[in-house]
């Protein structure tokens, strides 16, 4: 990985802005839930912020992503509008899905966020289809399938990687390996040490990188994106990371050894990147404090705007089932 293309200063700063937004927004969501103002299953993404920030740094609005219930980080990094997010979490009509999808089905096609699924593994077959469509359009678009370590053991993974490789599709299979699938540790889900080695079984490039290391994950994604845009086919990237807040809000994660938790929290990638930006002279304390203040302000505006939206009319049950409204 030493020979990986490295993110330049501007890119690192952009990645930090994205990571900070994801972290601060995630904390804000949990605050609303703890206060009992938001009722929903919420899958915190704290600890995984660097990955989508590195992905987004390599994509344009024309590129597609599919993600999972644990996907607000992927969405925000790619530019999901904050108000549309908060409106959706609040189940209001100003949500991107008019409140009909909720946190597990966030969608925003204008920026390529095509599907968020609640079914483990199902982001992959659909991302293959987006990659097929992208290849047919011939504009060099890329399709990214986000999924977890647990999803790597379900059938959809196998069929998707094989087809994408066979058809030479511009798809990036991004396994965010946070070591746990609900209560099951990675080691208890498969005999292999890492998922990326499975790529060989499909004739595909595969690599495992530290997803919390901005350089490693940025470089791996950049190479995969270039390969995809060049028409050289798909890549499987396994980004090692960790989820700080258990499976979903309310899960105390008693099944995770305390020292493992402590060790990971200590290696929190977001403050680490912040420290690095200052150390490398890319930004100073004041710059970053300013950025964070801006982000917080933007989030507060979005929270207020989200709740301000109207609750959907019952008639919405008859809309969007089909193209026409049901009688």
């Amino acid at each position: 990985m030493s020979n990986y293309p490295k993110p330049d200063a501007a890119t690192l700063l952009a990645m930090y802005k994205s990571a900070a937004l994801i972290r601060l927004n995630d904390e804000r969501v949990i605050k609303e839930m703890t206060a009992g103002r938001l009722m929903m299953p919420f899958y915190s993404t704290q600890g995984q912020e660097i990955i989508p920030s590195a992905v987004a740094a390599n994509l344009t609005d024309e590129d597609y992503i599919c993600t999972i219930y644990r996907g607000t980080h992927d969405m925000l990094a790619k530019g999901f509008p904050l108000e549309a997010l908060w409106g959706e979490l609040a189940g209001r009509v100003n949500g991107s899905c008019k409140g009909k999808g909720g946190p597990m089905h966030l969608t925003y096609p204008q920026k390529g966020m095509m599907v968020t699924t609640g079914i483990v593994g199902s982001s992959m077959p659909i991302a293959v289809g987006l990659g097929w469509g992208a290849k047919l359009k011939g504009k060099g678009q890329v399709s990214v399938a986000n999924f977890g370590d647990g999803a790597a053991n379900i059938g959809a993974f196998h069929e998707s990687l094989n087809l994408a490789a066979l058809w030479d599709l511009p798809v990036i299979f991004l396994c965010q390996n946070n070591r746990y699938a609900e209560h099951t540790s990675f080691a208890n889900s498969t005999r292999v040490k890492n998922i990326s080695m499975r790529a060989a079984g499909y004739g595909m490039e595969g690599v495992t990188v530290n997803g919390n290391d901005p350089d490693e994950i940025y470089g791996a994604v950049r190479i995969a994106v270039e390969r995809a845009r060049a028409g050289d086919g798909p890549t499987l990237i396994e980004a090692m990371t960790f989820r700080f807040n258990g499976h979903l809000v309310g899960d105390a994660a008693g099944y995770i050894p305390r020292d493992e938790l402590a060790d990971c929290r200590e290696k929190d990638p977001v403050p680490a990147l912040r420290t690095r930006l200052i150390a490398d002279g890319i930004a100073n304390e004041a710059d970053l404090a300013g950025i964070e203040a801006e982000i917080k302000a933007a989030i507060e505006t979005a929270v207020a705007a989200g709740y301000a939206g109207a609750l959907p009319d019952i008639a919405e049950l008859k809309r969007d089932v089909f193209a026409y409204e049901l009688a």
Partner: protein
Amino acid sequence: MTNPKKMNMIEAVNAALHAACEADANVLVLGEDVADREEGGVVGVTRGLSTKFGDDRVKSTPISEQAIMGAAIGASLIGFRPVAEIMLMNFVTVAMDMITNHAAKLRFMSGGQTSVPIVIRTMTGSGFSQGGQHSDFLEAWFAHTPGIKVVMPSNPSDAYGLLLSAIRDDDPVMFVEPMALYWTPGEVDFQPVPLGKARIVQEGADVTIISYSIGAVHSAAAAVELAKEGIAAEVIDLRTVSPWDRETVLASVKKTGRAVVVHEAVKEYGVGAEISSVIHEQLWSDLKGPVQRVGGAYSPVPFAKPLEQAFAPNAASIVAAVRAALA
């Protein structure tokens, strides 16, 4: 193709696929063995398409139904109109998640931001000694799934016209081809047939026989028998099972006061139950007796000929049900 022509359903479906690909460059075809390198399908339904429209638009796939459906869904999200083949209807069972959790729901869950204009072509039916895993009619599962339409032609002309409309439709359509009618020739006029509109096969004043697919053919045969006894049966071919043509059916039963619903699928919890219930709910005071149902036996489809024949409805069992309805 405008002047009518005699052909069988395989040829009619093939012609409709050619016409659809010709008319719209976004129409794609995929499935196992569908390309000409693989002889255009195991019975040749897709023959000639890849040669005419290219291997990019018409693709044979590995045996990976989840990936087939995912590829179709993903491409459909960005403007294409894929026609995906699931060789036999029993094989939808390995792709149910893609079909029912995704294809049928993405429009609604995205609040109308995305849509899935795909057609899932599949064939099925007993009578070929294929036994328990290659003969099932499973349309009731999809009729019970909001967001996907179910179309079931009974003759070449309808197959052509309904498939054209299904491909042009902006929502997912399960298109079920009855193997038993594949080789039966019929006059095809190459006109689109609207979805959701039933066809009155034969008018009659004494009883209404409501059916579709192979059941409609048996029902027409039963009507001939009944005519000999002086019983005038009105035979309705639903053509689209979901959404079904309530107006036509209710108008007919209002006139006859008696109804029999027929399908090869297992009778219990089948499509006939819904139609029977609605008729009772809507036409209580017009009914002269309870709606009768004729369907497959409550058992897997057996191999041995006498059992296979006893499993499925036929003209005789329909005639018997009509007598019961008139009793």
